């Protein structure tokens, strides 16, 4: 089959590799029909996630059709399924608590040692995201083996097109959990750093969960325009001092909840971020936490901080005293996708989410290398890329330009 592979920093290539096989009774094999490039794939692309090996198949947001099942799978051939990016057994202590991304069985014995050494405890398994999370082949491929296929996959009714439901795999539940973790109370002001796909779903989720207003922060005009379309007020951090603006918009109190949808590769030319950039370039750090620092300083006293953004290790100049003295509560973590699949599918059917307008490009799997480059370099125009196996190379369709705010 054909698959998108990581070959090193900023090196992505589409290769012919062996087809996956059923190995365990609970496995299923799916033929991929849609597979997206995620913001967190940029951290792999930039080489910031430890434990990648040249030749790894990437991709963790995908869906397709069941073509083969193991003896204990509950799926049936021909069913359309969306695959959660987290691999979860459903039976360990963590899965029973619905903390699916902490599954204690999905990271195999061979790979969990390194993960345990680095994190203190081994992380749960995930598709296409380095060997610290299990070393599973990813979904930017024609076929994928799905372990524990009786627990994760979401069966999709035939009348819902791929674009409506694909993001149930990661960014929609991640945005939803980000807003749930902010413990929003009716009328709250919620500030969201980063208007990438997760940020855009966080904005929609926060409003659905009762936020009075959402203030979104970014600097790419197209992404800010999408944020406004979904109901947020917007701040371009290249135009204003974000903390001053947030204070002035909230009578000096600050937002009730702050959500960091940026993660480890903050942009911007503030002094702290330039220093982080230098340290990262000198390989003495992997984290650029400017957005998180700003969120902590901006948040109101006694407020809530939710961190769906991905970080990889130890961070510098973390405003711990500010966090403590202001009495913030913090929730974070990889998404417990399986916990939210059912209710989010229902909400998609009820038309509560706009899952379509953030997609900027549909492209063939064969064009993945170019698409990764655009995703990295042209973040204003490329707001979400969906790859389609089977499309002929070069058959790319781009969204009509958005009406800028």
């Amino acid at each position, binding site marked *: 089959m054909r698959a998108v592979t990581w070959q090193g920093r900023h090196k992505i290539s589409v290769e012919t590799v062996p087809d996956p096989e059923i190995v365990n009774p609970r496995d299923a094999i799916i033929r991929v029909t849609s597979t997206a490039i995620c913001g967190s794939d940029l951290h792999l692309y930039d080489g910031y996630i430890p434990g990648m090996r040249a030749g790894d198949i990437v991709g963790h947001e995908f869906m397709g059709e069941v073509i083969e099942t193991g003896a204990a799978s509950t799926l049936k051939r021909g069913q359309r399924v969306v695959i959660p990016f987290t691999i979860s057994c459903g039976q360990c*202590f963590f899965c029973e608590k619905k903390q699916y991304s902490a599954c*204690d069985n999905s990271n195999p014995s061979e790979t969990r040692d390194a993960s345990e050494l680095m994190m203190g405890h081994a992380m749960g398994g995930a598709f296409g995201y380095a060997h610290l999370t299990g070393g599973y082949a990813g979904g930017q*491929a024609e076929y994928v083996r799905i372990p524990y296929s009786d627990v994760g996959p979401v069966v999709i009714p035939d009348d819902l097109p791929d674009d409506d439901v694909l993001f149930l795999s990661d960014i929609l539940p991640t945005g939803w959990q980000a807003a749930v973790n902010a413990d929003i109370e009716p009328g709250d002001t919620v500030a969201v750093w980063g208007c990438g796909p997760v940020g855009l779903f966080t904005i929609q989720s926060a409003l659905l969960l009762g936020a009075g207003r959402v203030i979104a922060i970014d600097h790419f005009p197209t992404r800010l325009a999408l944020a406004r379309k979904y109901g947020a007020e917007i701040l371009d951090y290249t135009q204003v001092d974000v903390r001053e603006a947030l204070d002035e918009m909230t009578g000096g109190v600050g937002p009730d909840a702050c959500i960091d949808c940026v993660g480890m590769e903050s942009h911007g030319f503030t002094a702290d971020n330039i220093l982080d950039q230098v340290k990262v370039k000198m390989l003495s750090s992997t984290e650029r936490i400017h957005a998180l620092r700003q969120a902590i300083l901006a948040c109101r006293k006694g407020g809530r901080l939710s961190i769906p953004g991905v970080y990889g290790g130890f961070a510098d100049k973390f405003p711990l005293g500010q966090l403590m003295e202001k009495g913030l509560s913090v929730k974070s973590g990889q998404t417990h996708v399986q916990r939210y699949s059912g209710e989010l599918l229902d909400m998609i059917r009820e038309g509560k989410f706009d899952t379509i307008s953030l997609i900027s490009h549909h492209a063939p799997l064969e064009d993945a290398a170019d698409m990764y480059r655009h995703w990295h370099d042209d973040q204003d125009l490329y707001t979400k890329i969906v790859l389609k196996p089977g499309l002929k190379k070069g058959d790319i369709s781009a969204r009509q330009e958005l009406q800028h705010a």
Partner: protein
Amino acid sequence: MSRSKNDLPDPLIFAAAGAGIAVLATGAALWQRRRHRESRGQEETIATDAPHWTLDKDSSRAMFGKSVLINRPRAELYAAWTPERFPDFMENVVAVDDLGDDVSQWTIKAPAGREVTLVNRITERVEDTSIYWQSTPASDIANSGEVRFTDAPAGRGTYVSLILAYDPPAGKVGRFAAKLLQREPEVQARRDLHRFKQLMETGEVTTNASPSARGAESPAEPHI
């Protein structure tokens, strides 16, 4: 007026000072640890609730223990810990042969494609609680151990602890080399214990077997 070069200390001096401080600090830490260890030997009792295998006492044998939480009842796990099932979750065990009288012969993968034979006798069984064993003189490697089953609190299942001591065939150096080759008993036991957990909780041993663009790998075999 520009300052002459000599006004500034050579950056190498800073580097040397830094390295000196690091060496002194490391030395002080080692000295403290040794002092602590020596004084502990003289005390009658050690005030601790830590499991004995977590205390860093010197031993001629390589000793270690590892515990996992398994979300199944204690009696079920005790009953499943039988030589017939070992090859299902012990990746390094080639075969377990029952020699009768609670003695079994284990054929185990060793570094560099070799195999070693262990001959162990079960010395004590406590129903649903623990199993102890001791090697016999016929064993290639002298070893002893215990597997212990304890109820976890709040209905969470069972803590299973594997405690093992053995004489590394080539001493500390050999043990280190075997670790690098992923065939050291501590590494193997820790991984096998997790495979036991996977098998008992999910009904199968988790594997990341999947394709890659690395020619040597099979999509049906696990990889690191």
